[in-house]
């Protein structure tokens, strides 16, 4: 007889690998093979090649600073394995299948365990590919034995499995909490975006402020993280199974280890056992769906605010109504607000990185920093706005398209109104990071205004490109469709080309003439122009588009 949890695990695996579809039996082992080759052959060779060329001094530094570096890497890996499955599962919040399973007398523990087991072969691929990044430098710097390497992989495997379990428990809890609400899908999609900065911060930190992060992580505060415990266990295994001199081992222990590795192992063991125990123990509570008080809460449309009334007045009766409804529809979706916030978050990082990151000390030029900061902020916001304003936001469903098409000139009226409402949303989206850039880097008032205008022009380009591409090939609300993936890639690539086409003349003027204002003015022109052409093409195609 088939075990229930095994059947659920199989179904979860089939869902997670649905893109491989009929060729799953060939493609899945092929993917595993590629990941293994990447991890065990490609990564060690690349790292070995670069480490061999850096000389003995660097090797020395490497050998002594590795424990700190490993703590950062393990934290990023931990966040990645923890958050990516949660983020993926929140993209599509549905608990309807739970009803089917429970009506077939499935136990909640079987459901939780089956879901977890089904995820291991999928997210395990990342561990296979990324694990050697952790192990290979040690192998090179400490000359770790084969047994040592196997032990290190075992620790990574256990740590990854516990993390996948934790992410399964978290995502199940969130699904149960929001799944029965009519707003659940929207909240889930918003959360899937909001959760990403948690990965971005340490990732960017490790890239740009490695030294400070590493030294910061040496503080006792980092010792509360399970990733630090496992990193220290890996270091410990590498030290004692490698060919380091006893004096070096002593130095490393004194410098890096606040507690004994035995304590780390105990902490990691207790953490793993607790997470497993609590997960199973809470299974019944996690799957008590439909019980949350928020699920019955009905959202209502309140009276129109001053801004909406102003929009109606400025644009007149019918067109004003279409713009106002488009504006309400966009801004009431939490996922849109989350995407905008994420774009703003990344844009705010740009001036911080340029003004206070490695660039600040390398280049000390009165024109380079302002021009670079403005161009990069525009680049970040522009590329992102193609995704934020295009993609799934334009049309919810094919039936919505029929409703628009059944009105005379319905599609052009709707697309124009949508673009105008996006242009209004784009004003604070462009203005806030541009003002922040100007104020942080001490721009003059006219330079701040120029930066705002430049960034807004690039955002306009992004809006036009995003809407135009989506109108050419509507993906509706389906983020797993081929149309969505193609649109996203096309929007990003076209926006990158647009922004590069904008930046090149700007940079040329900045370099040749050393002037800020003409550089940004020239850079403001190409992106919205190219975007406008794509928008027109999209609008015509959507108007002419017929049923399939």
């Amino acid at each position, binding site marked *: 007889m088939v075990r229930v949890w095994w059947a659920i695990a199989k179904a979860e695996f089939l869902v997670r690998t649905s893109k491989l579809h009929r060729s799953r039996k060939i493609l899945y082992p092929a993917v595993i093979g590629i990941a293994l080759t990447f991890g065990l052959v490609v990564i060690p060779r690349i790292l070995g090649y670069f480490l061999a060329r850096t000389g003995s001094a660097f090797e020395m530094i490497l050998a002594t600073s590795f424990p700190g570096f490993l703590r950062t890497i393990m934290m990023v890996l931990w966040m990645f394995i923890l958050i990516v499955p949660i983020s993926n599962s929140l993209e599509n919040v549905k608990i309807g299948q739970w009803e089917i399973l429970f009506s077939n007398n499935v136990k909640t523990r079987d459901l939780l365990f089956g879901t977890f087991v089904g995820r291991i072969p999928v997210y395990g691929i990342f561990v296979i590919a990324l694990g050697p990044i952790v192990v290979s430098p040690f192998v090179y710097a400490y000359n770790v034995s084969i047994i040592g390497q196997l032990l290190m992989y075992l620790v990574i495997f256990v740590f990854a499995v516990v993390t996948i379990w934790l992410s399964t428990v978290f995502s199940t809890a969130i699904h149960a909490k929001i799944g029965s609400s009519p707003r659940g899908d929207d909240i889930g999609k918003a959360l899937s975006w909001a959760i990403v900065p948690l990965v971005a911060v340490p990732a960017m930190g490790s890239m740009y402020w490695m030294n400070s992060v590493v030294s910061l992580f040496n503080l006792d505060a980092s010792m509360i993280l399970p990733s630090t415990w496992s990193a220290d266990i890996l270091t410990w295994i590498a030290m004692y199974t490698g060919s380091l001199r006893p004096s070096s081992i002593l130095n490393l222990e004194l410098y890096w280890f606040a507690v004994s590795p035995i304590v780390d192992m105990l902490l990691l063991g207790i953490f793993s056992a607790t997470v497993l125990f609590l997960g199973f123990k809470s299974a019944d509570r996690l799957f008590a769906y439909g019980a949350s008080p928020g699920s019955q809460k009905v959202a209502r449309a309140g009276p129109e605010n001053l801004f909406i009334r102003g929009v109606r007045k400025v644009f007149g009766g*019918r067109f004003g*109504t279409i713009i106002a409804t488009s504006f309400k529809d966009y801004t009431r979706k939490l996922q849109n607000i989350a995407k905008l916030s994420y774009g703003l978050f990344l844009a705010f990082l740009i001036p911080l990185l340029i003004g206070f990151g490695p660039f600040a000390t390398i280049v000390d030029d009165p024109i380079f920093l302002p021009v670079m900061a403005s161009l990069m902020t525009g680049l970040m916001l522009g590329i992102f706005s193609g995704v934020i304003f295009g993609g799934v936001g334009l049309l919810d469903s094919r039936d919505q398209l029929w409703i628009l098409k059944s*009105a005379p000139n*319905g599609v052009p009226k709707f697309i124009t109104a949508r673009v105008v409402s996006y242009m209004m949303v784009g004003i604070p989206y462009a203005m806030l990071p541009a003002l922040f850039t100007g104020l942080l880097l001490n721009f003059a008032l006219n330079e701040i205004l120029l930066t705002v205008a430049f960034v807004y022009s690039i955002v306009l380009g992004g809006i036009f490109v995003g809407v135009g591409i989506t109108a050419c090939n509507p993906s509706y609300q389906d983020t797993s469709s081929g149309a969505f993936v193609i649109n996203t890639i096309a929007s990003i690539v076209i926006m990158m080309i647009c922004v590069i086409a904008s930046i090149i003349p700007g940079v040329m003027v900045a370099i040749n003439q050393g002037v800020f204002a003409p550089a940004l003015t020239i850079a403001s022109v190409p992106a919205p122009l190219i975007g406008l052409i794509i928008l027109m093409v999209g609008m015509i195609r959507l108007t002419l588009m017929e049923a399939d």
Partner: protein
Amino acid sequence: MSNGIQIQTESLSKNFGSVVALKKLDLSVRKGSVFGYLGPNGAGKTTTVRILSGLLKPSGGSATVCGYDVRTQRNAIKSVTGLLPESPGLYSKLSAVEFLEFIGALNNLSGESLHNRIDRLLGILGLEGRQNDLLESYSSGMKQKVLVASTVLHEPELVFLDEPTSRLDPAASVLVREIILAMARETDTTFFICTHMTDFAEDLCEIIGILNEGVLTTLGAPNEIIEQTGGNDLEDAYLKIVGGEIDRDTLLSWRQ
């Protein structure tokens, strides 16, 4: 202009690649009548509606709707017709009032008269207490009522309804039926209704067309069709025409 005929088709056809969705349809629908279009799933009903409402170009043949050509005067057709699609394509983050206001604006309506119309329609459909709730919180039946309201909001001459009562409870179905009858009799509005509900069609429609695999196989008044086939009611007649009668032994054969 239209000589009392709202829909006139001659050898109207539609192919999607090698798939024939509609084959040489010849049809006339009189102004102010209620026409029922029956057929199994995938028979070509929705394709016909999309061609006649100006959303889809035919592959062959010709058709006029309210005197306008479906190939060359599609915007004119859209301005005098209303379409209720098969499944609700509503904006989840708008309230019923906001959605109807949006549809009104798309059809060049605005101001006090539009708002009065919206209030009255929502009142008739029993949604007056929920008109400001976001549509995401509506049940499927309530969403269907909002869609019905959006279809008749601009007082079209001809209304296409694709499965109008499939998600409605019996009371709401009766309400929609009465709205259709009142509009047909009092305002001379023509209704073209695609449905699987044979009892609903039998009660409401003056003429019924049965479409099977893209071909219009039967056309006539409900009682004529019942008589011709020797059935007890329209459902019986429908099953005899399209096939669908299965014996009990076959139904239980899966258990062996």
